[in-house]
């Protein structure tokens, strides 16, 4: 009843996307919190844009951008040997862009909650930007980073619009659980759909519980 191939692909997509999201979100959030340039407001707006953009619209733009009709898409195809659209790598790119605000927002909130006096003390003691982030902001905002990872992961697991527009429905390559669920409903196979939906629900509950149990276990609600 459960499409385990789609399940494995979904978990693989969400795991890779989450790892990339964290690598991008931590320095980007640090820049947004510690930076002084007025242009950062524009950068923050772009980061948050996928939050308000309909997923199908974002998927369409990415499909066009990464397809063979644009110089960017052709350049990527020349390097990879195939276009990014309708491939697993394309899904990763789409997922990272679509889930970026869900990872950046909690990390920005966590970094912003670090007392400025601590940042000043570290700077006077010789910490440059990288050390400031790694030795101070990251450990103090670890719960926010965990929340960002879980939200990014879950958001990718449940993603539908971008996946369908950008990846289509290729078994083993771009068919995720959300696409499977859609197909099952389309074919009126409600029994299978309820299993798939229950699996997606279970993943969300377990991941969210991990955040809250982790927070209580550490005994604090800070950062």
């Amino acid at each position, binding site marked *: 009843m459960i499409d385990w191939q789609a399940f494995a692909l979904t978990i693989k997509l969400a795991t890779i996307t989450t790892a990339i999201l964290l690598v991008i979100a931590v320095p980007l959030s640090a820049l947004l919190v510690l930076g002084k340039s007025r242009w950062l407001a524009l950068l923050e707006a772009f980061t948050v844009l996928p939050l308000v953009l309909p997923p199908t619209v974002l998927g369409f733009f990415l499909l066009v951008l990464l397809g063979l009709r644009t110089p960017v898409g052709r350049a990527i195809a020349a390097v990879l040997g195939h276009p990014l659209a309708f491939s697993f790598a394309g899904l990763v790119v789409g997922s990272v862009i679509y889930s970026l605000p869900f990872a950046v927002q909690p990390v920005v909130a966590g970094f912003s909650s670090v007392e400025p006096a601590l940042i000043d003390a570290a700077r*006077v003691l010789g910490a440059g930007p990288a050390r400031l982030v790694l030795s101070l902001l990251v450990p103090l905002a670890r719960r926010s980073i965990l929340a960002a990872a879980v939200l990014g992961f879950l958001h990718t697991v449940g993603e539908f619009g971008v996946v369908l527009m950008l990846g289509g429905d290729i078994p083993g390559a771009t068919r995720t659980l959300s696409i499977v669920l859609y197909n099952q409903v389309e074919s009126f196979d409600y029994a299978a759909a309820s299993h798939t939906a229950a699996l997606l629900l279970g993943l969300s509950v377990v991941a969210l519980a991990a955040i809250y149990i982790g927070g209580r276990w550490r005994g604090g609600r800070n950062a």
Partner: protein
Amino acid sequence: MLEFRIKAQRGRFRLEVDSRFRSGWTVVFGPSGAGKSTILRILAGLEIPDEGRIVFDGETLTDTATNRNVRPGRRRTGLVAQNPALFPHLNAASNVAYGLATLDSRARVNRVHEMLELADAKGLANRLPRDLSGGEAQRVALARSLAPLPRLLLLDEPFSALDGAASDSLLSRLQQWTTDHGVQAVLVTHDATDAFAAGAEVALLREGSMYAQGPAAEVLGHERQRMIDRLDGSGMRN
């Protein structure tokens, strides 16, 4: 020698000072809101003045005319603020070691030990900041700022959580240490007793301007008389 000319507007508050601190210890005395902490933050490089120049021992640290502002960590300046701002996830020893990234581990351990001892905080090495009292945290913060051996030490009411005797003892040890290591210190306070205890040159700051500068007895004569009058008054009541 520390020379600075600073103009800074912070909301409705205007700071405008032009001074030379020649002696090893200078106390900047003034009421709350006079601009003392702002001066220290600018000297530490944490804030850039609207206009001004800071030169320490011939090296220009800040010059707004040439857009020069040496990064806080590159000034070899130590800053101890009233808020100890200890890193909450590190124990006292690791806090003190934070500014010693360039030392090898043996030298780092020795320096941490030496500084905690100087600040009379040796027994606190393994304690987390949340387990320290206000006075203990200030001792650790002092040890942390001294550990990288700064050339210029900026102290913003660093002993406010210590009682009088402990504060005087620590101040006396610190003065000896700065003399031995050729470190120039600037102590900011609104407590005249600190100014007299330091026995240093005093700069009197009022409403963002340097009002007077000279020996404590001369600059703070009025404050001294006020304290004597208060003591006499309390003696009469007892």
